[in-house]
């Protein structure tokens, strides 16, 4: 197995939004890795780095306030909803608090309350003891609007409103954690992209919780669990047209890559919906996209593994050395990376 470790000083993580840091969404830094070279830009310069006819594919999944107060025989705890399997069946992670992982002991026949809604454990998630399926007596979407907060982990300085976790593309609620690659895009960036002749196509993939990777990343293979997605017909068509006209396809986020690769059949993206369990790693090079816009990923994560598969381990490692040297910021409110496929 490829070693997914690297040194990243702990102060290089965004503990606040770029707006808090006074630069605005499109003011984060943009590391551009092309060939063997990495150059340093500001995100709002992205349109100038693309060509007319290029196509961005974005994730229009919106972040949901998936962190809910819960109560059971073990006392009060936090239930972070990860993935909706049915209107009243969720895969969820029980935690003691924002900074203290679980699992919280919950009995098979125990009735717990998630923000006042009765729930029972259906079954544990195979191999990941902090995750389980829960069946509730009411649809938790409504409950979340009243009682939920965005999922947050210990490295953030303070809570943020849900709006801070929405990208400009957000349209279909369902992601437990923000599809953060799209966060640096602003209305201004979109207008500049349009003026430049760069197209935008949409799909959705709802992200689940990432806590296991964040907090428990040295357990061996990065866990990847099924996530719901849809690649619409128009998007499959737009990709085919862009390619035929010589345009390049740029995925905004590893979620977009995962959806497109799942929907790819012999190199051609087809419309598809369902749940994807596809794992993309160093041994799974993929061909559906020419470039990837993504955040900076932590050591020992499935995202980093995906990057290695896309751009080659040596190139990614070299670009990350450059990012560390220049003080780039990691995590969902951090800086951005445009990574072109090795030519």
């Amino acid at each position, binding site marked *: 197995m490829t070693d997914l470790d690297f040194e990243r000083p702990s102060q290089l993580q965004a503990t606040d939004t770029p707006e808090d840091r006074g630069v605005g969404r499109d003011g984060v830094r943009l590391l551009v890795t092309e060939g063997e070279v990495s150059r340093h830009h500001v995100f709002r310069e992205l349109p100038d780095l693309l060509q007319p006819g290029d196509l961005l594919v974005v994730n229009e999944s919106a972040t949901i306030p998936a962190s809910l107060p819960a109560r059971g025989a073990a006392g009060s705890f936090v239930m972070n909803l990860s993935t909706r399997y049915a*209107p009243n069946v969720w895969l969820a992670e029980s935690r003691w608090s924002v900074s203290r992982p679980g699992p919280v002991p919950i009995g098979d026949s125990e*009735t717990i309350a998630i923000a006042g809604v009765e729930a029972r*454990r259906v079954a544990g998630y195979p191999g990941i003891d902090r995750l389980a399926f829960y069946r509730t007596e009411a649809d938790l979407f409504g409950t979340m609007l009243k009682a939920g907060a965005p999922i947050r982990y210990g490295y953030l300085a303070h809570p943020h409103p849900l709006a801070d976790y929405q990208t400009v593309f957000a349209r279909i609620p369902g992601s437990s954690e923000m599809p953060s690659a799209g966060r640096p895009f602003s209305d201004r960036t979109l207008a500049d992209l349009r003026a430049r002749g760069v197209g935008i196509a949409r799909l959705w993939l709802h992200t689940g919780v990432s806590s296991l990777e964040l907090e428990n990343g040295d357990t061996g293979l990065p866990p990847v669990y*099924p996530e719901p997605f849809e690649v619409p017909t128009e998007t499959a068509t737009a990709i085919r047209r862009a390619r035929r006209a010589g345009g390049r396809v740029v995925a905004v986020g590893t979620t977009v890559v995962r959806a497109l690769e799942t929907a790819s059949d012999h190199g051609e993206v087809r419309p*598809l919906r369902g749940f994807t*369990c596809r794992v993309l790693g160093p041994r799974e090079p993929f061909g559906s996209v020419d470039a990837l816009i993504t955040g900076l990923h932590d050591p020992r994560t499935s995202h980093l593994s995906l990057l290695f598969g896309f751009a080659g381990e040596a190139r990614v490692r070299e670009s990350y050395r450059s990012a560390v040297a220049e003080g780039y910021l990691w995590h969902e409110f951090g800086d951005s990376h445009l990574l072109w496929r090795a030519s």
Partner: protein
Amino acid sequence: MTPESSGPRPLALVTGASRGLGEVLARVLAGEGFDLLLTARDGPALDRVRAVAAARGGAAHAIPGDITDVALRARLAQAVGPSRGLDLLVNNAATLGPTPLRSLIDLEPAALEEIYRVNVVGPIALVRALRPALRARRGLIVNLSSDAAVGGYPGWGGYGATKAALDLVSLTLAHELAVDGISVVSVDPGDLRTPGAEPAFPPEEFRQRPSPEVTIPFWAWLLGQARPAINGLRFQAQAEHWGVPP
């Protein structure tokens, strides 16, 4: 298809429920809020599964017997009752036939007939017996298939042929029972470390197969799907993608 807060609890019947995948299914379905009717040949083992399922809050009944026995099928239909209806039938019971596995050409015709009786005729006969109950609830039939249905693996010819037959049975019933609002799917659960599969493998190879619990996320997904959208489809529980045509 998971139960709503009001109205009666849905009822599921699982065959081969005493061990392996059937046991996992019984637990998951109890957790999903189903009342259960469980059957298998091994009465004591079946009762242990029944007790575990019943501890999850719903009713669970065990009726031991052999799925090839017309009397058992009648008892199951009677236990469901004419008015209650059946929401889910899982045809999970199956036999590999004589083990260690042998070439199809070396399989005694009598043994081959027995595999067909358990794996093909049994499920069809059970659907016949339960059709009114399934119609009453616009129920779902899940028939367990196998990669042996398409693999042509040496030694797996008898079992594989019955699973290929069952796949066609599933597709045919999906068309024929649509008029009743009944949906039918076929599910290949993938390689599993189940007691039923154990005699077919060298111990070392068997131990490397995943626990049947690996299929739990798939069942959670399948049970959340709108039934007409999945009618007639064949799924692989351990595939990279579970989906329906857009």
